[in-house]
């Protein structure tokens, strides 16, 4: 049993933490030391190594070292085959993110504003697949989009008489975009829903009371106030799609190659470490650029709102 402290002791106890507070706030920081060490050895150091590899040369024995060179980068951007993979990756990521935005708004709005049962069901349906393996989800699309009459989509379309010849969708860029959209859609809806949820309903009500039609309420109030969620979602979907590997392998086959697949080929098939590292650095560069851009956009927005 803890003794009940007398008033004097209690007063001392109040003063005590105050004096040791600064020391505590510094020392509790040491709890972050293990993860900092772990990530330094197994994440930051390896990442720096990859960056260095991209400037090194590999000799005939497969040993990477000096002399330093910039040639892998010029090689990457000047050889048509590689440059095309780069632009393909950007195009697929952009298309996926834009479609995710267009579909994300209706879904997020219905999720927030319909009755609790519908809202809960939609939330579950959006989030549950997030935990199902990307391999399984891409495989599901492989079955749906399969070329020839045995593909689920072709079976439905032909059964309904919409087309008489089966569509050829699998192993195309469209298939990769569909698969990526399925895999990363939650990353758009969730930030959008949380931004939309923070909007003061009175603003929309006021606009409506003053006679604004729904599209003007959306255009002038709902949409502008949801932009932080939009930017967060866009950044997530774009970076994740750009770095994907599984979906293009399963749905793009040999005809749609993205940066991730190119890295794997260079390391496992060609054994060209410096060039594989170069492509990896390019991929990281794309992801960092898109994150930096979104941070700047959000900051610019904040500044504008502070200014009169």
């Amino acid at each position, binding site marked *: 049993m803890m003794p009940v402290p007398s008033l004097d002791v209690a007063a001392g106890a109040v003063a005590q933490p105050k004096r040791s507070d600064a020391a505590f706030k*510094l020392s*509790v920081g040491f709890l972050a030391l293990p*993860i900092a060490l772990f990530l330094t050895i197994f994440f930051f150091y390896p990442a720096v190594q990859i960056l260095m590899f991209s400037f090194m040369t590999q000799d005939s024995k497969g040993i990477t070292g000096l002399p330093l060179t910039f040639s892998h980068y010029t090689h990457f951007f000047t050889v048509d085959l590689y440059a095309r993979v780069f632009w393909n990756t950007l195009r697929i990521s952009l298309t996926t993110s834009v479609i995710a935005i267009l579909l994300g708004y209706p*879904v997020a709005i219905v999720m927030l504003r319909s009755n609790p049962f519908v809202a809960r069901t939609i939330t579950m349906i959006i*989030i549950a697949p997030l935990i*199902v*393996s990307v391999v*399984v989800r891409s*495989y599901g699309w492989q079955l749906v989009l399969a070329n020839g009459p045995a593909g689920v989509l072709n079976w439905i379309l032909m059964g309904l008489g919409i087309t008489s010849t089966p569509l050829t969708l699998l192993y195309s860029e469209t298939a990769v975009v569909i698969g990526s959209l399925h895999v990363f859609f939650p990353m758009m809806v969730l930030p959008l829903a949380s931004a939309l949820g923070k909007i003061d309903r009175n603003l929309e009500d006021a606009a409506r009371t003053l006679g604004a039609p729904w599209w003007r309420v959306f255009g002038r109030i709902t949409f502008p106030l949801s932009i932080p969620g939009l930017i967060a979602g866009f950044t997530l979907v774009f970076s994740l799609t750009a770095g994907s590997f599984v979906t293009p392998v399963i749905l793009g086959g040999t005809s749609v190659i993205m940066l991730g697949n190119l890295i794997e080929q260079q390391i496992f098939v060609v054994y060209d470490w410096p060039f594989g590292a170069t492509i*990896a650095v390019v991929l990281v560069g794309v992801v960092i650029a898109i994150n930096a851009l979104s941070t700047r956009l959000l900051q610019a927005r904040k500044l504008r709102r502070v200014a009169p």
Partner: protein
Amino acid sequence: MNERLNGVAAWILYAIAAAVMVFILLPLAVVVASSFSNTYIVTFPPKGFTFNWYVKVLGDSEFQSALKLSLLLAFGSTVGALLLGVPAAIALTRARFRGLQVLQDLVLSPLIFPALVTGLALLQVLNRMGSGNVMVNLLIGHIVVTAPYVMRTVITSLQLVDLNLEDAARTLGASRMRTFWKVTMPQIAPGVAAGALFAFMVSFDNVPVSLWLADAQYTPVPLLLMHQLVNVFDPSIPAMSTIVIVLALGGTLLLERLVGMRRAVAI
């Protein structure tokens, strides 16, 4: 609430939302339906009904060892992620010193870093260290990926803790340790549980890191599935996929019961 959404615009919204739900569920439903097909190759529509493919998959020694490896790996990396992540989350929310924000951005950075590159970089360093133990390598790689998830959910929970309660306990003479275990911990427990479960799922589904670190002897389930997709065409693939879906669904329900999905994902 309902009167907010009405008129033609509302019906269009509902129609789009419904179409998106079909879009999300369709490929999963097709996989599950195909797994019961009594045919030697996957066809649509599936013909007949049989559990034979499940019998085949569950009896397959390759699948058994992959499943064992995946579960062990997910369990090990979750424990590792908790041991490293929870103390770090406490440090990042309770400490005050210069550079704290930078430190937080750094330890959470594996979340936005392309995992494929994380795995590749790790492979290169582990090779040079001469670390030939595939299981240890996989474990390290998975902890790098899962620990930031744990940190993120636990940081969120710690930020929601009522600091007045901690102050009250301290004022009443409780030590910092006692305050943590008796006052703080009960408040963040759901967050820690959600982080742990999420870390488990992330590890269980991981391909981009395992891809580099696994070998023919140690192949986790998602990698095995990916290899088999290319050369096996019978319904054992959908059966194996369905087992993965069922495991994920179990995890989802558990998360929903523990904390609610939205909070668990912390996006």
